[in-house]
Each structure stands twice: as C-alpha cells, then as structure tokens.
C-alpha cells in the first residue's frame, strides 16, 4: 500500500518478463516478427528461471544479435552476397555524395567581388576586363570557387605576386612549373611555360595559374586566378555518415529484392541480372571517381588545394548522368521485385491443446 492508501498491484514476474521480451522482439523486422515472434517468445518463457522479472543479459544480447542478423540477412548463395556488396559500395558512394552536398549547403563561398579583389592582388594592378566563371576547364559547373581570367600582362612576376598575397595575410606554397605545351595564338604556335601555385588564408585557397609566352616579340603572362574554399569543416563527418547510411540502404534493398525474386521465373531473373549488370557498368566510372575524390579528401597532399566537393560526381560532373542511369536501373530492379509477391511458407494449422 502506498502512503496515500492506494493499493499497488504488483504484476506477476512472468507477466513483467513477457512484456520485456515482447519489447525486445520489436528489434526484429516486422515480417520476421509476425512469422516467428510468438514461438521465440514461447522458447524464451519456457527457458526462463521461475521468478525472473527481467531478461538475462545474455538473452538480450542474443535477441539483439539475432535481430541485426535478420535485418541484414541475404538469400543463400554467393550471387546475393556479391550483389549486396556492390550495392553497398555504389549506394555508399551516393550517400557520401549526398552528405557532402548537405555539408556544402552551409559553406560560405567566395563572392565575385572577393574573387576580383584577390585576382587584382595577384596581378598587382586593377583588372581591365576580368572574365568570371564558375566552371572548370571541362565546362563542368563549379560550386566551390570562382575563376577570374585576365588579359596578358608583360611585367608580371610570380615572386612579386606571392609577396603581395603575403602582405594581405595569405600563405603561398611552392610553385610548380610546366613547360613544353605551346600556345596557339592567331594561328601561330608560341613557346610557353606554365607555373602554378596555391596560397591559403582562413579556409580560402587561391590557385594562380600563369602562362608565360617565351617567344620573342610576344612575351607576356596570362593569369587565371581561382578563389575557392578548402571545404566545410564537418564535410568528412557528413560524408562518413552519408556513406554509412547509403551502404546500409544498398545492402537492405538487395536483401529485400533478393528474397522477392527468389524462385521466380527465369525470364524475370534474367531481366534483373541484365538490369543489374547495366547499372554496374554505368555506375563504375562515377563511383570510382567519387571514391578517388574521397581519398583525396582523406589524404590531402602537403599543400592545401581547393577541395573538389565529393558531391561533384553526383550532380555536376559530366559523368554524373551515368550514375543517374545506374540509379534508374536499380529502381527498375526494385519495381520488378515489388511486383513479385513474396512466397509464403506453407504452415500447418495450429491445434489447441
């Protein structure tokens, strides 16, 4: 009896235990719980010591482990495992790209005015006719920076440009020289040398590409300045989380489709195999590209460079359409699987004793 005189009704131990077990069974996929939940419960209750009110820790661990196994379960056979791994790898890449895209939505990107100001610092004089673009040299849209190109100048030197950047708080890195690539101008082939360097300041990266014409009478330097950002600070976390979610979704969908398509007609299974192989062929290039970008993010070089966002491969790259095609094929497989009714196990009718 409580202090207020209310009678507390203590539930019998086995009722409390059963409630605990029922709660734990919610960890299982719904289909599995419907098929086996009651008999698992019967075994748990039969195995429990009398007067036990809460489940033994070993039973809890065993049930949770069993539930995880059921969620990630695949049909028997190597083919299902290979398909699940490939789906996890591809959708993991897609998930990482989505994570990267979400992270970049919060990034503060350089404005046109700041890009022109930086380009003028590099040049040393106000630009006469700056050309701004947010596209890379392949014509792909760039979200992580602005390119500023200017006319040729005859008195520009790399060391002076670095000194001006230093004076504005930038930290320039070493220069890389490229030579041997001639420049075609007015139908004439001119000898040229290219130099490039990066400078960083507060998460911003400026990349200066200078092409100097060495042919007498044509001497001068054309500059291209790219002002970008190194990438949002929490982009790696967003990429990892997105990748994990994508990989898990890939695995689960493969398991679901695998069970749906099991023992279906040969024509249906051949259709799915053809769709799957086409999806794999389409996804291979962009997926490898995306993982290479992720590797660059994970293991950056000694010098900071403007980060190529991982989501580039999802929406902006010219090969992103291949990935979209692969995802459409995957969707088609899911539609074929959804049209196949799950085969039910023949169960005898229960007798009550």
């Amino acid at each position, binding site marked *: 009896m409580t202090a207020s005189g209310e009678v507390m009704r203590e539930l019998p131990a086995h009722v409390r235990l059963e409630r605990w077990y029922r709660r734990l069974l919610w960890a299982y996929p719904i289909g599995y719980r419907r098929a086996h939940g009651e008999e698992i419960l019967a075994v748990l*209750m039969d195995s429990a010591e009398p007067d036990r009110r809460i489940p033994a820790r*070993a039973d809890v661990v065993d049930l949770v482990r069993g539930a995880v196994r059921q969620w990630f379960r695949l049909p*028997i056979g190597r083919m299902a495992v290979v398909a699940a791994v490939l789906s996890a790898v591809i959708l993991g890449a897609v998930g990482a790209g989505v994570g990267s895209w979400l992270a970049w939505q919060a990034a503060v990107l350089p404005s046109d005015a700041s890009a022109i100001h930086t380009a003028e610092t590099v040049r040393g004089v106000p630009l006469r006719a700056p050309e701004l673009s947010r596209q890379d040299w392949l014509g792909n849209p760039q979200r992580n920076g602005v390119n500023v190109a200017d006319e040729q100048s005859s008195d520009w030197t790399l060391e002076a440009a670095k000194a001006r950047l230093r004076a504005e708080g930038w930290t320039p890195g070493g220069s890389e020289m490229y030579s041997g690539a001639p420049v075609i101008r007015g139908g004439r082939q001119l000898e040229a040398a290219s130099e490039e360097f990066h400078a960083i300041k507060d998460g911003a990266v400026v990349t200066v590409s200078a092409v100097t014409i060495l042919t007498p009478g044509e001497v001068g330097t054309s500059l291209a300045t790219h002002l970008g950002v190194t990438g949002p600070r929490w982009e790696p976390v967003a990429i990892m989380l997105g990748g994990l979610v994508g990989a898990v979704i890939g695995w689960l969908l493969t398991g679901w489709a695998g069970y749906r398509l099991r023992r279906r007609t040969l024509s249906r299974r051949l259709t799915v195999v053809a769709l799957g192989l086409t999806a794999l062929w389409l996804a291979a290039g962009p997926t490898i590209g995306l993982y290479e970008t992720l590797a660059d993010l994970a293991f950056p070089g000694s010098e900071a460079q403007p980060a190529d966002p991982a989501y580039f491969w999802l929406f902006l790259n010219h090969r992103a359409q291949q990935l979209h095609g692969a995802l459409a094929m995957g969707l088609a497989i899911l539609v074929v699987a959804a049209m196949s009714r799950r085969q039910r196990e023949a169960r005898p009718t229960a007798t009550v004793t």
Partner: protein
Amino acid sequence: MQEPTFLILTALATGPKHGYGVTQEVAELSEGTVKLRAGTLYGALDRLVEQELVMVDRQEIVDGRLRRYYRLTDAGAGKLAEQARRLRKHAEAAESRLQARPNVAFGFTATPFGARP
C-alpha cells in the same frame, strides 16, 4: 557446417521437436557445453528451413503459447549423415596420428623400457 547447426539437425533426427525441445536436446547432446538461446536457435532454424534441410511439421497452442514443431527433411538427414561421416573420418585420422606421436617430454623420448637420452 557450424557446431550449433550440426547439433540442431542431430536433435531433430529422432523426430519433430519444438524450439524449446531442440534447445534441451542440444544441451544434452553437447553435455551442457552448447546452450542455444532463442535468437540463435531461430536464426539457425530459419536458415535450415530456407535450405530445405528442415521443415515445419505441425503447430500447437499449449497454455496460450505457440509451439511450432520442426522435423528433418530427407535432404537434411542426408546432409547430417554426410557431416557425421566427415567428422568421424577426421576424428579417426586425429586419433591414429595421436597414437603414432612419439611421447616427447623434456628432451627425452619415452620407450616401453623407460626414458633414454
């Protein structure tokens, strides 16, 4: 084949059993060394049903609780027999090699007439 799977098939060899019956039989067969818990048992049983080595025999409701009985299929019996043969062969090979093993201890080889250097 993993040990719990082998023991479950062995437990079902004598006739249909429900889940709790299987756990009891497995504990007895393994002399208490293998204790099958419900999550593991039904994970294994489900796999065995999928492989058509085991099938549902009947189900009863006893004291309001569902008891589903499982039985070994012919394919299951064949698989169990094959596994038993393989294990017996391995055990015989191990025993014969152990008998042929020289009794080496502390750098001395035991002979029927005592140790010699």
